[in-house]
């Protein structure tokens, strides 16, 4: 049984059918990439998994339990954390307070200190900036903070929505290194990306999404070598 099972998912925005019956699995320990052009429906799928939007049909199961209609705020307690599209850090809070928000549902002070130190050791800049207002960080630093905030709760499954968006190649590498590092330490990852090349290079498996439908699936290297994919997503 997969850690995350999405079956025949359908989502509508009014009369627009954004997701038209999508199924996919994320197995424990994997990095699964979901690639597709702008507007394909990647974010909509993420929001259906994390409960921020309601579904017109289909089901979502996590670790064996049905979370199709679970409220968004209950998911982090089950072990699903997300780095949303556009980072969505709390701009008016400090770096430290943002990290604390990531630990909101938990109580253990000792565990909090441990997680905090771990995040600071991944990204020492966050420690230096711990009392800085998060809105004043650079885009790359904000993405590091968003990743760390999501990892504070030690999730089983990490959802990442376009973590490379708007970042310089240097920061893209830093973020992707972090993704691989947390994966090695046991966190399963579902990664949504427009940067297909980068995503496929670290993915165990990947799905290709086109206007609300899955059109292709395979291992990361299979898709990297796929002629059609090369033409459509990797620029030749």
């Amino acid at each position: 049984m997969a850690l995350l099972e999405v079956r025949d998912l359908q989502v509508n925005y009014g009369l627009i059918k954004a997701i038209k019956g999508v199924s996919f699995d994320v197995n424990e320990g994997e990095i699964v990439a979901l690639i597709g052009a702008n507007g394909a429906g990647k974010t909509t799928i993420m929001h259906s998994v994390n409960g921020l939007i309601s579904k017109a049909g289909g089901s979502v199961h996590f670790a064996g339990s049905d979370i199709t209609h679970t409220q968004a705020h209950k998911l982090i307690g089950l072990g699903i954390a997300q780095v949303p599209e556009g980072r969505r850090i709390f701009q008016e809070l400090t770096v430290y307070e943002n990290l604390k928000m990531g630990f909101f549902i938990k109580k253990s002070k000792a565990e909090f200190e441990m997680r905090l130190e771990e995040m600071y050791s991944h990204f020492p800049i966050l420690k230096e900036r711990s009392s800085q207002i998060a809105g004043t960080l650079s885009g790359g630093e904000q993405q590091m903070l968003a990743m760390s905030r999501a990892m504070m709760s030690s999730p089983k499954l990490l959802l990442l929505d376009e973590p490379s968006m708007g970042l310089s190649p240097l920061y893209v590498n830093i973020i992707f290194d972090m993704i691989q590092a947390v994966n090695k330490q046991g966190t399963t990852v579902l990664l949504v990306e427009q940067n297909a090349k980068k995503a496929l290079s670290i993915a165990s498996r990947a799905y290709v999404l086109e206007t609300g439908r899955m059109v292709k699936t395979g291992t990361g290297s299979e898709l990297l070598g796929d002629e059609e994919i090369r033409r459509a997503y990797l620029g030749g």
Partner: protein
Amino acid sequence: MDFIVTLVNGLSLGGIYAMIALGYTMVYGIAKMLNFAHGDVIMVGGYTVLVFLAVNPVLAIVMSVIFCLLLGIVIEKVAYKPLRGASPLAVLITAIGVSYLLQSLALIIFGAAPEFVIIANLGTLDLGPISIKYSTIITLVATVIVMTVLSLFVKYSKIGRAMVAVSEDRDAARLMGININMIITITFAIGSALAALAGVCSLLNVPTITPTYGAMPGIKAFTAAVIGGIGSIPGAMVGGILLGIVECLCKAVPEIAPYTIAIEFAILIVILLVKPTGILGKKRREKV
């Protein structure tokens, strides 16, 4: 010397406006709605004092705060929660409906004639040339305590931090595991309890009450919240104090006194022209 007395009275009146404005601004920041029934909670609090005054003044104050706190929760659950996600206009009209409902209930129960609510006969503090009513001093002290406690609560408590997170980005807050409905409920409870306290302070100063008792302070406090920057807690404090001082200064000059309300709203307009988000308000960033 008159000037100092006027200033102290202004600070005290401003404190009352600020306590009410805090309710408007917190609800706006967190639930993203204008609760136009907020002023009427003050009135309900005042009548609650009246009902329990025969038993004991302190009990009356405590009951007033508790009753309004519960009333705030009930109003939110019954009237506003079903409209979550509805158009702002629908919510606004519902709030106006709640306001009329509360006023009408008070009219049915207590009648239209003013009732006297004399919580205590406090007298005046005489310091040579300066004399200040004790009710003014008590209001000032209450204001300082309320503002300090609320600021510390928002800054350091877990629920306070969650409130800030929700007001900044509701969906991101949900992803952190914050139960939005619970935070909204708590916000209404706090705002309504503060309205009750403001009502008690008002009654200490002017001890009469009618079913429309909350309307004017409600509008003034709403103005104060907008002047300070709606959604901002320090903004509500600054706006309230500013409005209270302006009001007392205007009323102290006989030639200007009739135009007091006009001047207050003129200040609102000028501030909004210069800074549309209010003195301490922040522009909401567009999300990418």
